């Protein structure tokens, strides 16, 4: 319980959060608009959405998760590596596994 107080409290208007919320909404809206209202080839749309997704990730890390403010590098570095490992496994693995579709189609 006590340790909760040690967490640093922000003073004043939470600009960071408001900007973060706005950015994440805009990024999401662009993705929807691309998929629903444009006629680009799928490869183009997917590429742009992936880029938007990475942007979304950075917004979350910097605006909401106080990624840069913590003094606990010792925890963060391995965690980020593990997260990258999982992300690569899931995305890369899925692509590898699902290529069977082009083989049998």
């Amino acid at each position: 319980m006590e340790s909760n107080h040690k967490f640093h409290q922000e003073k004043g208007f939470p600009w960071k959060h408001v900007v973060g919320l706005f950015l994440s909404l805009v990024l999401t809206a662009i993705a929807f608009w691309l998929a629903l209202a444009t006629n680009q080839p799928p490869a183009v749309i997917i590429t742009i959405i992936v880029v938007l997704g990475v942007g979304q990730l950075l917004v979350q890390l910097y605006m909401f998760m106080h990624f840069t403010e913590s003094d606990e590098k010792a925890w963060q570095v391995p965690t980020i590596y593990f997260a990258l490992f999982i992300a690569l496994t899931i995305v890369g693995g899925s692509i590898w596994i699902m290529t069977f579709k082009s083989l049998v189609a």
Partner: protein
Amino acid sequence: MSGIVNWAVHFFMLDEGPLIWLSDFLIGIASVGIVVALTYFKLWKWLWDNWLTTVDHKKIGIMYLIAAVLMLFRGGTDGLLMRTQLSWPNLHFLNADHYDQIFTTHGTIMILFMAMPALIGFFNIAVPLQIGCRDVAFPYLNAISFWLFFVAAMLFNLSFVVGGSPDGGWTSYPPYVENAFDPGPGENYFLVSLQITGIGTIATGVNFLLTILRMRAPGMTLMRLPMFTWSVLITSIIIVFAFPVLAVCLALLLIDRDFGSHFFTISAGGMPMQYVNLFWIWGHPEVYIVILPAFGIFSEVVSTFSSKKLFGYSAMVVSMIAIAILSFIVWVHHFFTMGAGPGVNSFFGVSTMAIAIPTGVKIFNWLFTMHKGRIEYKSAMLWAVGFIPNFLIGGLTGVMLAVPPADYQYHNSYFLIAHFHYVLIGGTVFGVFAGLYYWWPKMFGVLLNERLGRWHFWLFMIGFNICFFPMYFLGFMGMQRRVYTYPAGYGWGVINLIETFGAVLMGIGFLVFVLNILWSARYGERDVTGDPWNGRTLEWATTSPAPHYNFAIIPQVKGRDAWWLMKQAGESINGPKGIPFKPIHMPNNSGRPIIMCAFFFIAGAGFVFQWWIPAIIGLIGVVVTMALRSFEYNDHHYIPVDEIEETEAAAGRL
């Protein structure tokens, strides 16, 4: 008028025959009875103040476990219904539709609404006490997690009597579960309630990860953590990475069903197998989420009842970390038969077999812990010792399934059913029972009866083997899973009959357990010392049940098995005499979590029946209750020193 009547008859499934009428009747009677009893004994206020609004991890843990035992009863009843239907060829006790619904709700309830809450209940009961702190990192969020699970479980169970249950299996594979083949609310119940409980589980993962990393007592380094807490740490990490995948996967399927998109349909470029892929990216880590905490429980139990410290502590930790990493790179073994090709299948076959190595290391560690120990066969220990051979059978047949060409034979046969019940029952359920017998005194201040405990163990364990061992052979003989009946003449009849007999024995074992709870509540031996097993870890250092604030003074930890060391050195948990108490800072109770989750329920029902107005009202309610929390400044109180002194004096610790 008759239109409305017809709709209502269908909606409440009154056209489904006497089984549903009976359930309607029983549920109605039970609900009315509970309301009447609470009102008559004037218990509403007590219930609200002490339980519904609590943020105390010990009470939340108890509520999780009560819910889990009730769900074990519901899921077990499903199991018995299925076993009755299968006990002889060509029976018509259940029809095909009902059988499909029952295996679906059985599997879903057992995994998501029985195993998960039971284990998370133990996280709550034991972890803060084991690491010597006063609550979890986010007590308010912890209450939200519980109520999310609870409303999700209620929503899912409602499907039985309102609108119809899901029938696509606990895996809910498209294209069958798409609207074209499976219209109606059934599958939506599955998708929405798993989504809701999944949010709660992710929050639990974050909560316990932080609790263990940030709230340990001074001196409690990571390599001094009790093994159960280690298992919770690793499990929390797996939860945080795996459950979001499930959330995405379910959301996409729900969007398909509610809004007509084509992520997983056969037509319009959908990829049904992508669902299967995503489902198991979560699904395999999920099986480790439900087994690692059970491993943790066995580690505590084995070392306590062998009066020895755990053999190979670091090897245990390293194997759990290895299991956590490997659990994310094996998921294809659930769908080798999709035919992704030899490269994919060999890779995932080999990675699966690799998991047997760290698991084997753990088995040997438990055996060596017992070796030359002074073993006391208390009930908790019986479950732990029974677990080893049973889990081994499950694990070894798992390695057989990991060989892709062989899996083409075993896939979706009763061989598979036998395998996963051996790991889920022999591992998780045995672990839950071990944990219940072990921590029961800590939770309620009374011991469960040992004699009834032995009956419970032997009936359940023998019944389990009679029920599930023959299934391996039924699988070889060609019997498939998820079939509601089978013709005579294959020689399957007698084997199935024997299995059903075993299932009944398990049911009786469970009833003995219920009897034990009732008996002990009235006549059970009180736990006056707080340390009935001569325990080794800090939860045994305080009173049973622990005082609201857990520890009057945060203990100083000097090594592994902290409480054991203190007892050896003759030290008190409150440190040297004369350290003055200070007022203790505790979070306030709050009614908001349960109200917020009630809105989740309304929104969920909206998405199930595609009633958009309740869905929107529910979602707005969720956002508003969440926002209100931000304006709550008075969210804690202090326990005054004289109250602490009083409690500590009563516990004889002054």
